[in-house]
């Protein structure tokens, strides 16, 4: 329990964070910005895990362990995504998603 902060407040924060991420992901066309939005969503979830773990079953630490995993995974994923973006840039000299739409019907 964190003094003076209820679960509702923390959940509100993560929800806002998550939807900002979704908004950014859907609206930005720059791949780097989309990647950043993705990170926002992932972080919102990581906070959720910690908070819910703390408020529902403080005796065990599964939620916190999960958030550690999420952080590690997010780092790996970012590295991969950046590599892809870099490669795409080398191929097309663009990182604008609107310009790269080869994979359509």
């Amino acid at each position: 329990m964190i003094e003076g902060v209820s679960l509702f407040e923390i959940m509100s924060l993560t929800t806002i964070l998550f939807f900002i991420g979704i908004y950014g992901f859907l609206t930005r066309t720059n791949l780097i910005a989309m990647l950043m939005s993705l990170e926002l969503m992932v972080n919102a979830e990581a906070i959720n895990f910690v908070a819910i773990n703390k408020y529902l079953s403080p005796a065990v630490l599964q939620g916190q362990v999960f958030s550690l995993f999420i952080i590690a995974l997010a780092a790996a994923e970012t590295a991969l995504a950046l590599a892809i973006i870099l490669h795409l840039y080398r191929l097309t000299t663009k990182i604008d998603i609107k310009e790269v739409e080869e994979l359509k019907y």
Partner: protein
Amino acid sequence: MDAFSYTYLIPLIPLLGFLFLGFTAKKIKEPVSGYIGTAGLLTVFGLSLYTAYKYFFELGLTDDKYQTVKIAIKNAWLHFSDKLAIDLGILIDPISVMMLIVVSTVSLMVHIYSLGYMHSDTGFSRFYAYLSLFTFSMLGLVLSSNLFMIYIFWELVGVSSFLLIGFYFEKPSAVAASKKAFIVTRFADMFFLIGILMVGYFGQSFDFETLNNPTTYETIQNWIANHQIFSFMGLSMFTWALILIYIGGMGKSAMFPLHIWLPDAMEGPTPVSALIHAATMVVAGVYLVARLFPLYYHIQGGVALQVVAVVGAFSALFAAIIALTQEDIKRVLAFSTMSQIGYMMLALGVSGFEGHEGLGYMAGMFHLFTHAMFKALLFLTAGAIIHAVHSNFMKDMGGLHKYMPVSSIVFLVAALAISGIPPFAGFFSKDEILTAAFEYNKLLWFIGFLVAGMTAFYMFRLYFRIFFNKQTDYGDHKPHEAPVSMLIALVFLAAMTVISGFIPFSTFVSADKIPFHSHIHWGDPLVIGSILMAAFGIGMAYLMYFKETAYPQKVASAMGSGYKWAKNKFYFDELYIFITHKIIFDKISKPIAWFDRRVIDGFMNLLGVTVEKTAERIKFIQTGRMQDYAMFFVSGVIAIVMLIIFFR
């Protein structure tokens, strides 16, 4: 028994020969491949003679009876149930030993003959490879120890017959003939297979030794008596099984109405006609009935055997009538073969079982033996004539006696033998058939008697028209006597034709395997009658054909449409074409094809087209823009969450 364990070599040697010649057909040239094939056959011939000597004289009689020797190569090769299994084995008994002699003798002679006949043919090595394949299959067929093995080899001889009829595959008529032979015999084999399965189901065995055991057929008889319900048209299922097996034999032996392939099979090289379509393969049906003879005789009072007799007698008469009118010498011989096989079937059909009553069985086997010799001789001589004249038709021949004296004499020997003039081989066997038929049924005897006269007539019609009659002008290309290799085979077979009638056959082959003695009663009216009948046929032929006369024309026109029908083989080919094309193809196959194309395929195409059209409509969703996909995904998730929240 161990003493006979070498017999597996007899079919194995031609098989190895086939594999060797088949793989090296391109590399080994004439005449080496012929020598290899002939050497293999010579070994087989020696082994067969040795086996015969060993079986009949060394092993001899045990308890006054020839014992059946079975050599198991593999027990329970195919295991169906505890009682029903198929073994691989070799069966040696009087008839299989007799067939070994027939097959190896004729095959060896054909191998030697073909060295000359197939000279400078491009397919020389291929021809010898096929001959070896056929010899292997035929020897396997005679040595088979159970119905399934015989079926396997039955199909193998069918295949080799197909390959050899279609040997000149650049000739459309040869291709058509080989297909016809294959399809007709396969059609009959379908019934054969059903018969085999029924025998296996109702008799609980495929093994000849078990099936021909008295206890087995007594068990089957009891079973039939207790299970009247398993019958169709008054005949029990087992009788039907035997009749179905006989239909298989009818297909291979060219019995009416499945005879249509045999005349066309003459498209193959002449040695092939001699080997396969005269001496060995076509008598497989006779051999099959003889193999299962105790069953045919005992089950339900021998109803199936009566079918054999009637079909045989009818085919003999039918083919003899057609043979009277044919112009192609090979076709005359083909119909003659069919007629003589009808004789053998008749002999088996009228036979009893024990002691002297089994005369018909013995006579049928005897006729098979002698017929193989003289008919092979007739075909090989015909081959020599065709080789010299380059035509199959009698109108292109005539006066050949002075050009080909040896061929003329051996042909005369064979023609006398088939006509039944003593002392040639055919007389003894044919006379015993007629005696057996006379004791059984006067009508069947009369048919046989009539056919004997007709046989003499058409054979001498052939002989006189080829070797005497008009003096055809052959121009610069004078006919010449056949090369030595061909003459060796001809003279050997002629010698066999002369002496084989004196073999005391009844002391070797009989239905119950107990030897008995049969003599020709020279004073018997039956014997004198059949000799007179043959002499009458020969005399008629002499009058009409020795010199060029107007009689044949007059007789033909006096017969009117009868002559025309016989000449066109009673329009059976046309009838079959009508049935297959107009009825089966048009009335059954075409509606089925229409249903398949329009309804079944139509439904499948409809499915395909629907999917394609739908996809065409909705493919715009696939924009290739990641955010669109994400948008769909997010809105989907939101929609599901909403549903869960509001409609829980």
